[in-house]
């Protein structure tokens, strides 16, 4: 997208990974998976995160920059639930056939 002339920013809760794959600008946020802008019904909180993420566009002037946003999630990790109700298919497969785990980690993906 960036190469096609669009200016991008990625709001990421795993900024180490997002940066490693070459994202031009990263707005890092320490929120759990599934709710990158905040809790349901918290319009003010969501708007603040959105404004801050877009604000990063005016703060970074070179490729590969990361800005850590100052938002704090109200619950400790032990209380946060973000896993889906059904275990993902890949997790079920690797439980049945643990020797395939190495392929998953190595990116050696079967056709």
């Amino acid at each position, binding site marked *: *997208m*960036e*190469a*096609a*002339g*669009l*200016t*991008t*920013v*990625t*709001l990421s809760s*795993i*900024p*180490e*990974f*997002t940066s*490693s794959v*070459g994202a*031009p600008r990263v707005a890092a*946020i*320490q*929120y*759990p*998976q*599934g*709710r*990158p*802008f*905040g*809790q*349901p*019904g918290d*319009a003010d909180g*969501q*708007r603040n995160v*959105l404004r801050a993420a*877009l604000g990063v*566009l*005016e703060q970074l*002037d*070179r*490729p590969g920059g990361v800005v*850590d946003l100052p938002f704090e*999630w109200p619950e400790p*990790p032990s209380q*946060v*639930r*973000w*896993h*889906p109700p059904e275990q*993902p*298919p*890949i997790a079920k*497969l690797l439980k049945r056939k643990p020797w395939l785990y190495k392929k*998953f*980690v*190595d*990116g050696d*993906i*079967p056709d």
Partner: protein
Amino acid sequence: MSKKVDSYRYVGYFTRKLIKAWIARESPHEIPWTPLAKPLADSTVALVSTAAVALTSDRPFDQEGERRDPWWGDPSYRVIPNSATEREVSIYHLHVDPSHAEQDLNCAFPLARLQELARDGVVGESAPSHYSYMGYILRPRVLLEESTPAMIERMKAEQVDVVLLVPF
């Protein structure tokens, strides 16, 4: 200066190890760059979410295909109009609990919040179209060679300046 974000605060041991291994495999990238051409307050903004959001009236993302072949993820994308709310969309993601975003789409795909920022003059406009694909893609060829160029083409046609990408 804010505290540095801990990338692994909410992920378990297994996911942390996996992500670290994937990061270790990456080599330095030539990072593409388009400077902000005009102030944010004059820019048209589009959102892209990996939450696999689709209008309920549109084709669902293929979850059965992934259940049959867990190495595969649906690499297509959907267009979501600016006016969409949680009442008109479904979320088809097998790796993250969709219930919060089903309750309030703005948790993950803040179309209503973006329109408010446009009304308040923080951004120029919210684009007519926004986009979603499903973020679990281990074989990215179709996503990179077909879905992404098609999204870009539509963004260009709608004079988008700025794209906010949001992993789910």
